[in-house]
């Protein structure tokens, strides 16, 4: 039960956090050069966005849940199972970011979910 609750937080809070960060990033716009100066100004810019902070808070919750579960489960089990965030990410990106998920992406995501199921069966 604890394990399921932790996986839920890793997947849902983690994915929601990434969607918030992605929303913040898209409002800054595409990064064209990779000089230290422009990367620093990019990081500073991002810290002024509320979406960024909400994203960081949610991702932190997901991160602490990950730490907790890693204290008693194997890394090679936990990380692949958390790939469930693909399905969550696709639904979220469609609803929240207006991204169009075409048929091929849906098929890929479905295959990932099958893989996660197989990894789940290998649970010790």
């Amino acid at each position, binding site marked *: 039960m604890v394990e399921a609750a932790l996986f839920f937080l890793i997947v849902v809070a983690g994915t929601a956090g990434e969607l918030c960060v992605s929303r913040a990033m898209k409002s800054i716009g595409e990064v064209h050069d990779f000089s230290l100066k422009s990367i620093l100004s990019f990081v500073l810019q991002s810290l002024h966005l509320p979406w960024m902070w909400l994203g960081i808070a949610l991702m932190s919750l997901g991160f602490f849940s990950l730490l907790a579960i890693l204290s008693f489960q194997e890394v090679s089990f*936990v990380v692949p199972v958390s790939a469930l965030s693909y399905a969550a990410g696709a639904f979220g990106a469609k609803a929240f970011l207006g991204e169009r998920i075409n048929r091929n992406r849906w098929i890929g995501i479905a295959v990932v979910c099958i893989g996660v199921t197989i990894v789940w069966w290998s649970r010790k």
Partner: protein
Amino acid sequence: MTHTRRLQLKTLPLILISIVLGPLGNVFLGKAMKGIGSVTSARILDLVPIASRVLASGYIWLGIACLLGFFIAHMLLLTWADYSYVQPATSLSYLSISILSYLLLGETISLLRWLGVAVICLGVFLVGRTSPRTTGAPNRG
């Protein structure tokens, strides 16, 4: 050079960096947390001493440093590429996490688990062949 081609030229190296740093970070976190012992209580009083032991672990900070590098690469990617493209593409890391847990943590990975990871990577491959961006370019300078 087409715009899509140019996007791919800067997208691929950053994805590669993500694939190595992210899993390495998780492996270090796993190593640190196994040293702490099982955390299953959500009571604040139980969590305080655990948190202090976690913060004192060197591996935690090594893991966080790797994940920070991963996070910056990931943020850069997200400024031009779709989230639903970046997330699956960087997730070839499921293969590297299995290899790293086997090599660095000595975890035994059953045939079933390798099969599951391979299927996940196949799914990743299918998604990775779609275009990096489906929405418009809002702030093109």
